[in-house]
């Protein structure tokens, strides 16, 4: 009788061991599933998606604020637009658990570099695959920031195969803005601009007849050696119109913060009034 009682206890202990074993196995299995699910969620590029959205809307907001405030001349209107935009973005992102902040930088005069800043890319392609240019203006050229002949700012037009069709070197010659124009082989002439305004498509520069019938690229070289504004408009080879205009830049800082971690913190120079093609 005593022996049978002991057997029963062993069966009970065995049953409990099996039960605990199942619990342990299930917990381990759940952990594995949890880990794999966590890994799958990490593959979602939410930061990239939100970042592109923030940059796109902020750039558009600056362009609209700039155009609606007479090229930024009415700073009250400009700042009111950006305040409204910033406030709505803060409220909108707060519902998703993000803290949005926008540091509203002041309007700056631009260099002829790629991003408009003094330390931006010096030599860059402004537009490629151009079929025709309707308007190509440079204005507010600043003599004091313009380089001398050895540090000249150059506008170069190259054809499809990369050979030069037309170029203009702009430099400071004893306090005078001097433009030295040449085509593929010869010098067209030297000109001066007292006002700091150059209409490149004027007949005297012979831009249009040297680029007619070509597919060409417009390049700026040594952009950091000159400050000013520019506007280029025309048609691309595919028939689409293009229009690039830079009067000012604003070096804007955008931040998106979540759970105390800095998700996005980027400072981007935005070209105004119209940075895109």
């Amino acid at each position, binding site marked *: 009788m005593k022996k049978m009682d002991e057997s029963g206890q062993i069966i009970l202990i065995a*049953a409990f061991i*099996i039960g605990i074993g199942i619990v342990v196995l299930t917990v381990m*299995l759940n952990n594995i599933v949890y880990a794999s699910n966590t890994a799958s969620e990490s593959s*979602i590029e939410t930061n990239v998606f939100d970042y592109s959205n923030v940059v796109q809307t902020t750039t558009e907001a600056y362009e609209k*604020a700039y*155009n*609606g405030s007479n090229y930024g001349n009415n700073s009250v209107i400009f700042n009111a637009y950006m305040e409204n935009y910033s406030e709505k*973005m803060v409220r909108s992102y707060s519902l998703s658990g993000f803290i949005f902040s926008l540091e509203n930088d002041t309007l700056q005069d631009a260099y002829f570099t790629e991003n408009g800043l003094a330390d931006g890319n010096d030599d860059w392609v402004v537009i490629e695959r151009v079929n025709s240019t309707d308007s190509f203006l440079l204005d507010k050229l600043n003599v004091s920031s313009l380089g001398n002949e050895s540090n000249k700012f150059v506008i170069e037009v190259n054809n499809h195969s990369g050979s030069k069709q037309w170029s203009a070197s702009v430099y400071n010659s004893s306090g005078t803005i001097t433009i030295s124009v040449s085509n593929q082989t010869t010098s067209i002439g030297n000109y001066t601009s007292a006002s700091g305004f150059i209409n490149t498509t004027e007949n005297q520069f012979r831009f249009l007849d040297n680029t007619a019938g070509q597919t060409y690229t417009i390049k700026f070289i040594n952009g950091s050696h000159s400050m000013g504004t520019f506007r280029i408009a025309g048609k691309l080879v595919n028939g689409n119109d293009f229009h690039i205009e830079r009067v000012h830049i604003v070096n804007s800082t955008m931040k998106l913060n979540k759970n105390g971690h800095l998700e996005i913190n980027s400072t981007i120079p935005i070209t105004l009034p119209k940075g895109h093609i």
Partner: protein
Amino acid sequence: MALIIVIGVIVFTVQATSLTPLTSSTANAHIEAQLQILGQDMLTVLDHSKSGQNSSLKEDILNWDGEKYTWNSTEYVSQNNNILLNSSTSDLLKAVIVPKGIAHNVEFCIINDGGTTTTLPYIYNGEPSDNAVIVSRRVLLSNSDIQDIPLFRSETGIYDADTSTDFYNLIDVKMTLWRM
């Protein structure tokens, strides 16, 4: 007797232990992640703008007549039997989401001055399930984007948040996707 005790303990422990999202069901986190990526990609495509023009998503907001459209297995139809035409959003949904049998809503949300939100259904196919994913994209509207501001306001209910500047409002486009 011993066998009954052992089986009883096994049944008890299996019932007591939670076996949660282990299977490839509609609740699977991988499917949720896929839906989220799909939604993000669609909104990115729709919100792409070229040559300084409005994005397709913005155009769809501007062309909206304020009606709530529902998929009837061939078209998006409103309660007044109007068919949703000239909408890039509906075209993309028809091409990508509908053939996969994924249920979807598209709503426009605006935030009021008091901090409350107003949700305006653009495409509505019912209440989403617990495992639905929401993808949202902010679209900026300016007065200069809108042809007839009083008409746009009366039709859609999207109001001008600042009448003193060109700023009109910020729209949070919410796309909700779920497996039925």
